[in-house]
């Protein structure tokens, strides 16, 4: 476990992990947005990689991916972007969120070496379930990377226990079925699921998928150790797209006040 993860894990805050798409709307914007998120109190950052076929994502993140693709962003560049983030002073753990096919084409080994050298802390592969992840899991641990696992309310009890036990970095608990995206309601019985996850996990248990308001976020405090916000933030970035390209300072200011409006008052 590296230093950045140590800080993350030992934080007593209700941990905030935002997701943004690399290259959306351009590389420099991604850098400044990342730094702004850290300033606003993010405990870790998930950095998405644009992909032609993001089957775990809803429309908001799909569109962000299209913008990233239009910037020729790819997995290799995303990893290298993390180097730049480090150079610019980002201290929180960064998790690369990538579909498996992108990893395969870059080469798993090449990716891992590059990631390790670029200051990446973890990888999350939404279409690589535990059953298929043996090799990558082993290689990640050799390269000091956390392979972050997703668990879902539909994950069977036994498997949930096992995934929770073996979780690295944090355990990503899906708040509701379906793809990423903003939701107005959550699943009944979610608390039991989170409780079961927490019971076995050695790492913080974060809840994600669909959270978009302070109220929604606060309701999981207590049952989880933190939360992930993706689509809501990405949607804000979409709204700010032209300013982020041409009037970035102003846009970042607006972005930060949006993030502040989102965060639970007690999380800072």
């Amino acid at each position, binding site marked *: 476990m590296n230093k950045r993860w140590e800080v993350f894990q030992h934080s007593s805050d209700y941990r905030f992990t935002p997701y943004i798409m690399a290259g959306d709307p351009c590389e420099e914007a991604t850098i400044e947005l990342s730094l702004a998120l850290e300033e606003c109190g993010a405990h870790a950052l998930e950095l998405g990689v644009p992909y032609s*076929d*993001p089957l775990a994502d809803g429309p908001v993140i799909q569109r962000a991916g299209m913008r990233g693709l239009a910037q020729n962003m790819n997995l290799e560049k995303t990893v290298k972007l993390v180097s730049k983030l480090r150079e610019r002073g980002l201290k929180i753990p960064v998790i690369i969120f990538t*579909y498996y096919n992108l990893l395969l084409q870059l080469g798993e080994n090449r990716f891992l070496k590059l990631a390790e050298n670029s200051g990446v802390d973890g990888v999350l592969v939404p279409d690589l*379930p535990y059953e298929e992840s043996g090799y990558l899991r082993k290689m990640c641990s050799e390269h000091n990377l956390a392979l972050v696992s997703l668990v879902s309310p539909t994950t069977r009890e036994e498997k949930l226990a096992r995934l929770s036990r073996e979780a690295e970095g944090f355990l990503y608990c899906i708040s509701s079925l379906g793809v990423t995206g903003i939701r107005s309601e959550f699943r009944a019985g979610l608390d039991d699921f989170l409780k079961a996850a927490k019971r076995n996990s050695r790492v913080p248990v974060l809840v994600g998928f669909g959270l978009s308001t302070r109220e929604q976020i606060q309701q999981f405090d207590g049952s989880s150790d933190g939360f992930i916000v993706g689509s809501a933030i990405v949607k804000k970035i979409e709204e700010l797209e032209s300013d982020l390209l041409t009037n970035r300072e102003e846009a970042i200011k607006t972005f930060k006040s949006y993030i502040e409006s989102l965060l639970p008052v007690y999380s800072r």
Partner: protein
Amino acid sequence: MTTATVPDHRGRYGVFGGKYVPETIMFALEELETAFNEAIQDQEFNELFQKELAIYSGRPTPLTKADRLSESNGGASIYLKREDLNHTGAHKINNAIGQALLAVRMGKKKIIAETGAGQHGVAAATVAAKYGLSCKVYMGKEDIRRQALNVFRMKLLGAEVIEVTSGSQTLKDATNEAIREWVAAVEDTFYLIGSAVGPYPYPKMVKQFQQVIGHETESQFKEIQQGKLPDAVVACVGGGSNAIGMFAPFIEKDVPLYGIEAAGMGVETAQHAATLSKGSNGVIHGSLTKLLQTSEGQITEPYSISAGLDYPGIGPEHAYLHETKRVTYEAVTDEEALHALKLLCENEGILCALESAHAVAYSLKLAKEMQKDQHVVVCLSGRGDKDVHTLMEFEEGGNEDE
């Protein structure tokens, strides 16, 4: 031959196959695998499936000798396995019936399906109507525009057709979207995949429900040819369901097998769907297989005049049969397919699907190089009624050029 051992318990055909899907639906794949394995060991289920194929879809489909075509072509005789005579006009219904019966057995009331040109969508909507299931069909916006008739048919059958506006708005995006919906509604929804693709156990299941093509062919051919086996068997390959169904009983026997992909404008151009000839290993729609992609792993849009071959991936078992060289995969251009379609039409009075025309085109080449007393069997996967519009447009375009 080594194929008897695939897929392994993890759903692998060599390196290919597997289950590359979000954790949310992993339990559904397990549930499906269990239900499927139980079903195919249940004689009652198998009998029901066979009965439905017979009294609903009209099986067995005949094996028609193409006398005039063979004669004018020279060389070996060509036999046509007439999947075009199935209810709804293609082999797709075999699988749709099988999966729908399984859905009913599993107590599911809703099915979802993806479709490109609409053939599998119509098959899915058909079985949904027949077995009283609700049905949503995901279809790219672009395809909805091009295939208004099939969209209307699905609606007539009571299905909901959902327009997919993501990505390139075609089949691969419709499949992504169907998977997304499945992830959201997995607890009560059966995803009825239309080809031998997708995460395990789909490739195995689709093969199981399509192998009736090959089994019938084998016994029909043996009956005509005093117990002999064909000298070659040819089928077109999009996702690979008609081909794997046709090949199934022959894989372990000494019969040369040919899978024919769409070369579109030519495999040397960017306009083709020749996954095995030009693709590389990758993951698409839940399965590790060969696919058409950029060096960075972005999946590219394939092209073929035939909507059913226009898929950037291929079933994992085909990737395996290609790698082990058990099956020879070749590619046939739009032009060759069109020419073959016309020859078949003029000589045998059979208007086949553009997909199937690819297989016919290759059989003609193959037969020419074979002996007069040899026999090529080609899977006529579907009828060409659905393609008449495309053919007309092509003719008009062609005439303008002259």
